[in-house]
């Protein structure tokens, strides 16, 4: 590191516990919002969640059916590509393992799709074995629309844009295909610990 910003000291740093803040991130207590367009408002009566693509029998749940699935409470740190991280966020959701239970697929990639046309791509193995959820509550309250409600994907080990808001389903794919932000230059995988913010990082 041979460059120094003259006169810059930065904020007192003891606030972030060692080893918890990925490179280039800083800790926030509020919950910033990032999205590319208007917040969709799909009524629960018309909401469904689907598994499509490389699957013999596509699956679909109505909101009621989805909410009847077993749920988990998840406490995780989240990291946004716009540099903020938020520790110990508490979510309630359905594990992707539950949604994919018994599914036989050769797919290796997933495209999560959302209301408003938003998509994001994630390797299937990053969504299974307790690594991802479809979350419907945050901090004990129903998830607000501006934070992705009624339900968003939660993949806390990747940058938060991978945790698609307003998620309506997962498309199982044998080949990788970039989603919305990924086609605009954001990293294909998005590991905060390797600081994979933009294509080529």
């Amino acid at each position, binding site marked *: *590191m041979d*460059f*120094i*910003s*003259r*006169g*810059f*000291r*930065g*904020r007192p*740093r003891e606030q972030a516990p060692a080893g918890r803040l990925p*490179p*280039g991130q*800083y800790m*926030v207590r*509020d*919950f*910033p*919002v*990032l*999205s*590319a*367009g*208007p*917040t*969709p408002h799909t009524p629960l009566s018309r909401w469904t969640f689907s598994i499509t693509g490389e699957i013999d029998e596509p699956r679909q749940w109505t909101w009621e059916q989805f909410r009847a699935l077993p749920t988990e409470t998840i406490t995780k740190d989240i990291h946004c590509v*716009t*540099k*903020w991280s938020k520790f110990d966020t508490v979510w309630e959701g359905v594990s992707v393992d539950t949604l994919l239970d018994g599914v036989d697929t050769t797919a290796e990639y997933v495209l999560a799709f959302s209301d*408003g*046309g938003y998509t994001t791509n994630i390797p299937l193995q990053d969504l299974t074995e307790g690594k991802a959820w479809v979350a419907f509550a945050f901090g004990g309250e129903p998830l607000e629309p*501006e934070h992705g409600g009624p339900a968003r994907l939660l993949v806390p080990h990747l940058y938060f844009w991978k945790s698609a808001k307003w998620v309506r389903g997962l498309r199982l794919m044998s080949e990788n295909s970039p989603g*919305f*932000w990924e*086609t*605009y*230059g954001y990293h294909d995988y998005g590991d905060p610990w390797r600081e994979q*913010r*933009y*294509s*080529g*990082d």
Partner: protein
Amino acid sequence: MARAAVQRRLTWRRGRVTRRVDETPRVRTLVLALEEDWPGHLAGQHVDVRLTAEDGYQAQRSYSIASAPEDVGQLAITVERIGDGEVSPYLVDELTEGDQLEFRGPIGGYFVWDETPGGPLLLVAGGSGICPLMAMIRHRAARGSRVPTRLLYSSRSLEDVIYREEVDLLAARSDGLEVFHTLTRDRPAGWTGYARRIDLEMLTEVGWRPDEGPLGFVCGPTPLVEAVAEALVQLGWSPDRVKTERFGPTGG
């Protein structure tokens, strides 16, 4: 060019501050000299800025490029000082002519305007949310574009209006740019513009009708962006014609 610009590897660069401009009591523009290998940018894109302390500690933040792509050889960012902020007070108060700043970019390919998506354009800004929209307004002027464009700009008071003179001058060219201000806190005596937060009624008066095929860019604090985007959809705009960018976690 859009794709080429964003898909190349984004390496950290150093730019020398060549000029500082006081925009308002809380806002300053920094002009950075660019090296020749800068790939150029699209109006609406941003850069990431990285500050490094002597002990190696680093902080990164995003800032919109406020200058037009046609303004070659340099790049302007306009920064609002956030009271207890880590990076913005340094950029506004500390960094001065001759200092170096590390940055990389250009970043973002969705919240951009390049004349081709057409118009008419509705630009809605709250506070420093004007910055990426100013790049579009400057790009439009530099191109001699006549795409009908309306800017609806919400500020706290007249002295908080960023780029006021330049915007007024551009509007006076009568080439299809119209500017509407709303002042939410303090108004000078005799103020005839809007004097409240942007609402449905204001957007009905200022915005285009959905059947005119408008394209909207909305930028500012989250509550403003949420309210405006929602109102436009209520007015019949297609959601995919409303592009948003949010700067701050909370209201400003």
